[in-house]
């Protein structure tokens, strides 16, 4: 139906609603309940983590990886990583991931205007050199990793990013290849008033 058209992205706070039973629905073990309590960052995303808690070892490792990539010390700025996350989420059409990480990007950069344009106009919207390089690289990696070539790294180098920083941006975009696929295919973002986003 509307799956082919571009989704309407928002910076509003959404809830995530699962399409199948979470461990809360079927009776969580104490191990599952403890893990969900530890890793769920907000009440609106609790059901996402309560769903992933069906597979405890995977959720543990994935959470460690996510935190290392998005919040680990040194290297690319936190805002660079959030920008790569937003670019990947826009390309994949993940409304929920985009809403969360666009808010974080806007908070970190204090640039709500650019963030809103990315959501409204898409990844082609006008950006400064560093942001342009990060978005273009993340978009290419999201769409067609096999086609990635050294020429795709050149703009990042010209914008002054080091190899570890480029690895950080790669990791953030790749992490959202993972996160988007879970968020988009196991449930959906919903406005708190209950209207599907």
């Amino acid at each position, binding site marked *: 139906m509307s*799956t082919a058209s571009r*989704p309407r992205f928002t910076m509003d706070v959404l809830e995530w609603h699962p*399409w*199948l*039973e*979470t461990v809360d629905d*079927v009776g969580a073990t104490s191990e599952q309940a403890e893990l969900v309590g530890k890793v769920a960052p907000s009440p609106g995303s609790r059901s996402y983590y309560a*769903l*992933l808690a*069906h*597979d405890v*070892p*995977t959720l*543990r*490792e*994935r959470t*460690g*990886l996510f*935190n*290392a*990539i998005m919040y*680990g010390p*040194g*290297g690319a700025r936190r805002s660079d990583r959030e920008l790569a996350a937003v670019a990947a989420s826009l390309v*994949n*059409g*993940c409304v929920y991931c985009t809403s969360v990480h666009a808010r974080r990007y806007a908070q970190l950069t204090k640039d709500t205007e650019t963030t809103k344009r990315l959501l409204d106009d898409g990844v082609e919207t006008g950006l400064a050199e560093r942001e342009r390089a990060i978005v273009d690289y993340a978009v290419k*990696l*999201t769409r067609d*990793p*096999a086609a*990635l*070539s*050294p020429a*795709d*790294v050149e703009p990042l*180098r010209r914008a002054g990013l080091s*190899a*570890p920083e*480029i*690895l*950080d941006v*790669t*990791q953030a*975009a*790749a*992490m959202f*290849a*993972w*996160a*988007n*696929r*879970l968020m*988009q*295919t*196991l449930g959906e973002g919903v406005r708190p008033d209950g209207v599907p986003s």
Partner: protein
Amino acid sequence: MVSTQNQSTAERDGGDDAISDLAGIEPGSPQARLRDERPDAVRFAQGSYSALLEPEDPAGVSRRERELVALRVGILTCAPGVAARHRARLRALGGTDAELAAVERFQDGLSGLSPRETAMLRHTDLLTLQPGASRPEHIAALKAAGLTPRDIVTVSQLIAFMSYEVRILAGLRVLSEEPA
């Protein structure tokens, strides 16, 4: 930590590192040193690989089924090294030429795989190529093929992890191909 700075994380932990193997990273090379700057990412990526492809308790999704899915992602994303790895692992678990060919050329109704395997591979194609087209009906199809909610979470995590892995490998590849 300082005394082990020049060792790869895999050597430090005495464990395997699938991404390093797949990327063909030699110990002591610039690529190895680059990855060593992000030890937590290396450690948890390998932990994710182990949890999904070498689980202590495979629960409802067999190792064979996991290899079928991983192989399919390698094929769909044009990642020959990834596909070769899972082809070999599937063979080691008793996979036949006919089964391997069915995964390579998977198409609804023409697969020669079980209905459960067919449903998993159909979902693999959807999540890998068009995640945004997913609807609740796709979850219902997996349930109708006998997958439990836990099985569905595990298969989804595996497909999504593989999507991560092929992109990390692409990034490491272009960084190694950059002109000096």
